[in-house]
């Protein structure tokens, strides 16, 4: 069941168009990630949904009712800020209680709810702590407890892990996912980190300079990127120009590294995406790519090698255990075009 509808929203700040005709929906109990590079308009979108900014064009609906005339404090949405924006003059208890007080909950119930919330985020004894003494991870949890306490109809999280170090981030994103799904909380999660989005989201809205590039599940987006931008954003950088011609035996694609048969609805000039993660380091695949091995960047579980193929440098990922030849030597990799190639019209 769809709860929130973003209906062709546009917003400009001065001469910069922050959002341009953005539309998507959020379903009951779903975690939707807004993913995109910084400056793509995702935080602006949150401000619009929260009611902190007003859209130039378009409307936002909740359960079919327009939110246009509802001020932020009556929307019953929660927002967890980047850097958390905890109230520095209040202790942990008062921070978490704030939303409950605003809802005029009575004190006994507030006490009870705060105990619940603090144990939910794993900090049951933190009631009386000064928020200025909390570590980054603790602040993050308290901010989550504060946002969740008044039972928001929709929780929005704006880069909630952005300011934390990598290890902590990887741990907290899993915790966050657990807490949100346990509470069956409808949520919008803004991030620029694809891995975070993949872990936490049921669906992803991928954005680029104010526009929606693709909407889909993490699997759909990763396996079927809708545009060269999406592919590049997901670190699939092998995008090369090619030409498809209809010939007797089917469609043939002409590329820098040779020609081969391909299934495609397109003809003429196209761009080919060659998935870096689906190549073999031998010539046993249907399509061979020959070039010179130029170097490697080691990424832990995998290593990404650079292969110079005529004018282009392509990247391919192999397990880190793979033995690599000497730099500068010839190298051949092979791929299956059915799975490893996607075609974008040029």
């Amino acid at each position, binding site marked *: 069941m769809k709860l929130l509808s973003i209906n062709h929203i546009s917003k400009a700040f001065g001469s910069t168009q922050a959002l341009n005709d953005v539309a998507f929906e959020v379903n009951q109990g779903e975690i939707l990630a807004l993913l995109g590079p910084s400056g793509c308009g995702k935080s602006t979108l949150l401000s619009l949904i929260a009611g902190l900014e007003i859209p130039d064009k378009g409307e936002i609906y909740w359960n079919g009712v327009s939110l246009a005339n509802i001020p932020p404090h009556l929307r019953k949405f929660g927002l967890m800020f980047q850097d958390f924006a905890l109230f520095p003059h209040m202790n942990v208890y008062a921070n978490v209680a704030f939303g409950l007080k605003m809802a005029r909950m009575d004190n006994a119930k507030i006490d009870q709810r705060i105990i619940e919330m603090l144990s939910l985020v794993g900090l049951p004894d933190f009631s009386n702590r000064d928020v200025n003494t909390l570590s980054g991870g603790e602040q993050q949890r308290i901010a989550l407890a504060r946002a969740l306490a*008044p039972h928001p109809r929709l929780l929005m999280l704006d880069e909630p892990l952005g300011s934390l170090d990598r290890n902590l981030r990887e741990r907290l994103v899993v915790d966050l996912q657990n807490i949100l799904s346990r509470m069956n909380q409808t949520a919008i999660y803004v991030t620029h980190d694809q891995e975070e989005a993949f872990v936490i989201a049921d669906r992803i809205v991928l954005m680029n300079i104010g526009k929606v590039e693709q909407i889909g599940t993490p699997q759909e987006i990763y396996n079927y990127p809708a545009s060269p931008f999406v592919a590049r954003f997901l670190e699939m950088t092998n995008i090369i120009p090619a030409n498809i011609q209809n010939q007797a035996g089917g469609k043939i694609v002409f590329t820098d590294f040779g020609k081969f048969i391909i299934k495609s609805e397109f003809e003429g000039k196209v761009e080919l995406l060659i998935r870096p993660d689906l190549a073999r380091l031998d010539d046993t695949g249907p399509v061979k790519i020959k070039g010179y091995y130029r170097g490697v960047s080691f990424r832990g579980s995998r290593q990404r090698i650079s292969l110079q193929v005529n004018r282009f440098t392509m990247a391919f990922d192999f397990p880190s255990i793979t033995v690599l030849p000497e730099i500068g030597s010839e190298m051949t990799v092979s791929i299956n075009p059915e799975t490893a190639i996607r075609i974008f019209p040029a």
Partner: protein
Amino acid sequence: MNKHHRSISILLLWLAPAAFLLLFYFYPLGSIFSLSFSRSQAGFFAPIIEAIKSSIPWRVLGFTFWQAILSTLLTLAIGLPGAYLFGHFNFRGKSLLQALTGIPFLMPTLVVAAAFNALLGPGGWVNIGLMKLLNLNNAPIQFVNTLTAILVAHVFYNTTIVLRTVGDFWSHLDPRINQAARMLGANRWQALRWVVLPLLAPAIAASALLVFIFDFTSFGVILILGGPHFATLEVEIYYQTISLFNLPLAAVLSLLQLACTLGLTVLYTRLIRRLSIPLPLKSTRVTYRRLTTRRSKLAAGVIIFSLLTILIVPLAALSLRSVTRLEPNRGEQTVSSPGLTLDFYRNLWVNSTASISYAPPSTAIIISLGYAITTTVLALLLGFPAALALSRDSTSHLSHAFDALLMLPLGTSAVTLGLGFIVALDKPPLDLRSSLLLVPLAHTLVAFPFVVRNLTPAFRSIQPRIRQAAATLGASPGKVMRYVDIPMIGRSLLVAATFAFTISLGEFGATSLIARPEYPTIPIAIYRLISRPGESNYGQALALSTILMIVAGGAMFIIDRLRIGEIGEF
């Protein structure tokens, strides 16, 4: 240089400033003390007991507090909306507006008093306008000699403190904290009440207390705009000294004043430290917004209009009134038509019989300039070594002690300083009564802490490595000073000099007690002229005020241009 050597050279640097403070601050203040304690037959504490028994100190103290509280509240009421505007929004003409609103604070008291007189006094624009309009013979609005006049002038003076301190703090406050409150269900007012105001509290309290201190020690405004009915401690000290010659009572009042101002100053520093909450402050690039909605534009318009009205209109009224003639000069047969005239300025150079001093008022300009130049030289001579010492050694107890000591003259009211000079420096061993140095010495006392405050950060900003580099290239310490330090602090030196010069030009409190009648400064001349009847005297007072305003405004402009960092300390 070893450590021992070093501390000796720092002590040497303190020699002149310390001697100056001892002779011209502590000695006069001590004389006030002894005057109020020892007076003989009736016993040691006689003057104090006498004073306490009489009703004067309590009545005066009560009124001083009362008007200061009212003025502070009014100033906050006007200043806080302005602070909100400056702290939140970027709009065209903002920096100009900010500069304009800063002008009143640095205007000499006498200029402010004259400005309000030109706007709302019996011969001011509003009254002559109303008289013309309604065909009245007398001024319908009684402004001068009312409490309202005092309050309005104080608001005029101090609003900029609230605008700057609170506005600046507000502009760095992370807007997301407010948004977080809104998202948790707080409406506009609840978010302001429970989240924003508590966070602003230190800034508001600090500015309020500072405003209170200025209102508490206000002198010229109350003397001229309040008239004979209203006396704060400052004014009462002046009356008791000048009119009634009751020096013991004046001394007791001075002590009371001193105790209050020092107490308030200590409270101020404590409060700032106690109330400060560690805040993640944001760059204003993140926090500033534009005026977009119609509502915010309207509100901004109202705020800007009222600020301009309160802060700028009186000064405009002053300069305009000083070139406007409304009635013919006394003794002239022909009725010259009302209109623009430079007569008031010309008359400043005429030694008319109506003139109060035995010289034309223009003499005051020359005297003031002479005093101001002397003050500037003295303040720099004393402030330079003090600032150097403070910057070279910022950790020792000696430095901390001197640092605090330097602020004492600023925390002491000007009239008290003047009284101290009268009491202490009119008899051997230091008889300066007839010396032309007396006034510049008093001005230096006020100006040289400002010089130190301006020069110390400049000295500190020079990295030791630069001096070391000069030394390794063969420069002696003297050469290092000449070719490295002085060129690098040049701008600050100029700012400090301009400060000292302007302070001296506008100083009224101490000067009013110690200036010799035949050597009036510009503020003294304005005071005399404005207390006398007649269009010519009035016009000349306004003309002289306008000249002072332009000089002070020019000096502020120079300071503003030369200053490197942000707003300095008040």
